[in-house]
């Protein structure tokens, strides 16, 4: 940790000292989430969502492990083990299944808010590029885990979702179909696919946990960002993580868990699809195949390419879908503005909100039945998505005029009182952050 005023770990309890001398885990914990990690004091509630993602990862792992004690990973037994055994006969089985089902949705929800926080406040910019990219790796692993988990109950949507998603690979010429067959262990989703998806679904969350540790470690080198995007300068800018942010994270987590509990106990199937309560039938396709809501924007992008042009439409769709996520890895180099936070970038801010609306539209299009109007809407929204990141952001970041930054975090915390009486037009550099001179 590069903050000189960070408190050193001084174990008061003799047992803690004994452990720390032999395995320095207590001091690592103290320095990461305890009183020894200085955090900017001006964080808003959008900074709570990383911890919330960790909470839901834990919920998923715990409920998943106990569900695996009763689940049968066979095409004959899977549906009945979930809907017959777990939901009816296993003690509290219905609670564990609904908790796991809705926990996945909430895990994605808090992660999306966490990602959009990063997009708005420039959390992906130097020196946190690797934090951003590790986060994207976590997101990709989450998508794989979520997809495989949805296949496990072996309902109609499980089966046909597996059919569609593994079908992506056959879009690639020459190697596509062999890869698809290799993935499935067969020609269509069957016993082999189900058992391997179960194995990988059990494994990946632990891989996610490992990457999460790297993600947090990479973050703790420069320390957390903050809504102004201005670097931490001295002690007045920060507060120790414990007890200030443990308290803030704690109460807000209880509130979010309240929402999660209300959904799990009172509307457990609202976010799901009725067709998954029908056992899988390889001979009958459901009227509308849709993935779970958290994949809808990508599904919309996939389905937007309807015309062959040099490449087959299907291949365009698959490429666009993959690239829509891969381009995010390059964001730190696409958006080179030295100002981090959207609060001080008025043009960027407007396009950000346009992106939010755009993603919501894509989500709507991805989840609704196909209609000519919706296809057109999806095509426009997909076009905007790519233009936003690949054309608009680079241009905006190059040519926009930003607002003057506060001279420090603690200055901004005091709501522009006497301390912000620095004369207009000051361009004095302090600690690496640059305020572009403007006449307001």
């Amino acid at each position, binding site marked *: 940790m590069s903050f000189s005023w960070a408190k050193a770990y001084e174990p008061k309890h003799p047992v803690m000292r004994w452990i720390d001398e032999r395995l320095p885990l207590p001091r690592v914990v103290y320095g990461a989430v305890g009183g020894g990690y200085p955090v900017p*004091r001006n964080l808003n509630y959008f900074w709570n969502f990383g911890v919330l993602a960790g909470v839901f990862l834990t919920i998923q792992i715990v409920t998943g492990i106990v569900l695996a004690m009763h689940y049968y990973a066979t095409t004959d037994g899977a549906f*009945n083990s979930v*809907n*017959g055994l777990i*939901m*009816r006969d296993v003690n509290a089985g219905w609670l564990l299944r*609904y908790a796991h089902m809705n926990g996945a949705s909430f895990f994605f929800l808090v992660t999306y808010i966490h990602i959009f926080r990063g997009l708005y406040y420039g959390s992906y910019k130097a020196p946190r590029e690797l934090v951003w990219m590790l986060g994207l790796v976590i997101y990709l692993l989450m998508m794989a885990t979520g997809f495989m988990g949805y296949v496990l109950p072996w309902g109609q949507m499980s089966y046909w979702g597996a059919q569609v998603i593994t079908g992506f690979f056959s879009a690639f010429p020459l190697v596509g179909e062999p890869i698809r067959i290799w993935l499935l262990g067969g020609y269509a989703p069957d016993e082999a696919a189900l058992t391997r998806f179960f194995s990988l679904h059990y494994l990946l969350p632990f891989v996610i946990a490992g990457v999460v540790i790297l993600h947090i470690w990479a973050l703790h080198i420069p320390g957390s960002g903050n809504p102004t995007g201005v670097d931490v300068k001295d002690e*007045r800018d920060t507060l120790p993580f414990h*007890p*200030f942010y443990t*308290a*803030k994270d*704690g*109460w*807000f987590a*209880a*509130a979010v*868990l*309240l929402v999660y*509990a*209300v959904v*799990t*106990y*009172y509307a457990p*199937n609202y976010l799901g699809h*009725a*067709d998954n*309560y*029908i056992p899988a039938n390889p001979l009958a396709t459901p*009227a509308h195949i849709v993935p779970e809501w958290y994949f809808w924007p990508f599904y919309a992008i996939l389905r*937007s*390419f*309807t015309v062959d*042009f040099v490449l087959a*439409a299907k291949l*365009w769709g698959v490429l666009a879908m993959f*690239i829509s996520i891969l*381009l995010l890895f*390059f964001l730190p*180099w*696409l958006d*080179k503005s030295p100002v981090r936070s959207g609060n001080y970038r008025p043009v960027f801010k407007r396009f950000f909100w346009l992106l939010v609306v755009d993603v919501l539209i894509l989500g709507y299009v991805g989840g609704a039945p196909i209609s*000519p109007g919706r296809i*057109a809407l999806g*095509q*426009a929204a*997909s*076009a905007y998505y*790519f*233009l936003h*990141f*690949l*054309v608009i952001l*680079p241009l905006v970041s190059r040519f926009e005029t930003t607002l003057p930054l506060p001279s420090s975090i*603690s200055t901004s*915390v*005091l709501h522009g009182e*006497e*301390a912000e*009486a620095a004369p207009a037009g000051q361009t004095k550099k302090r600690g690496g952050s640059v305020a572009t001179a403007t006449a307001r």
Partner: protein
Amino acid sequence: MVRVIGFLVGLVFAGVLLISLISNAATYFQSPPAPLASDEFHKEPKEVRFASDGPFGKFDKAQLQRGFQIYSEVCSACHSMSLVSFRDLKALGYNEAEIKKIASDWKTQVPSINPDTGEAATRKALPSDHIPSPFPNEVAARAANNNALPPDLSLMTKAREGGSAYVYSILTGYQNQPAELLKKFPDAKTPQGLHYNPYFANLNIAMPPPLTSAGQVTYAPGNPAPTVDQMARDVAAFLAWTAEPNLESRHAAGLAVAIFLLIAAILGYLAYQQLWHEAKRAVRVTGPLEPENQAKTRRAKARQRVAG
């Protein structure tokens, strides 16, 4: 470099999407897709309320028993309910002896083996058995039903949009195909062997109307009269139970958990506010409001006024 490539990729995707959009629009306006009969004549489930609806919903045990009676006397001839065990019927208010009798009297027996010869045989059901299926396999089921497979009913209200209201609507929705439909869509006459029902997704359902006349099932005294409407409500309510037998304990546990989390969030919020209130005061004491820094600010301002 990254930005140049990104720029081009973005333009390419946007371009291909534009081509797709224009092409689709052209096709749409030149030859708009033909409407389907189901687009216009399909009906959403009827508005009907059940005792188990809503966050405080509970099952009406008497209604569930009537519904089970309808299932066993009418529906079980074709529809299996393989996820429900006879012992589960305890939740409907039957005692052990009654359940034993229901199981052993069940018209379909459970497959087993002749203990002497080892040949396939059947035995009477026990309370621990799942409700036996009327057909031994899918082929037999289709053979007996004009090549249509009567679906298992255990999860029916969760497997269809609209739940119990959908089931009720189907059961009470059989009618003659309206003349208007045949006028607009002359090719959409209900095929032989199917039945017109506007609440079914493609309007023509293979199941013949199962509830045709009042009194088809005789209810025990003290129950409402078994009209078609009442019977449909009762069996739909029963199917809500088979799909969600834990509904009542789920609602009760949910209330306890929600109240607990609400109190935890409030306590947490108060503790957080108290903690931060003190921190904010600490900032002011050491920050720019310190008298020394205040004096500096005043001097700087004075110099500005002199200069400007």
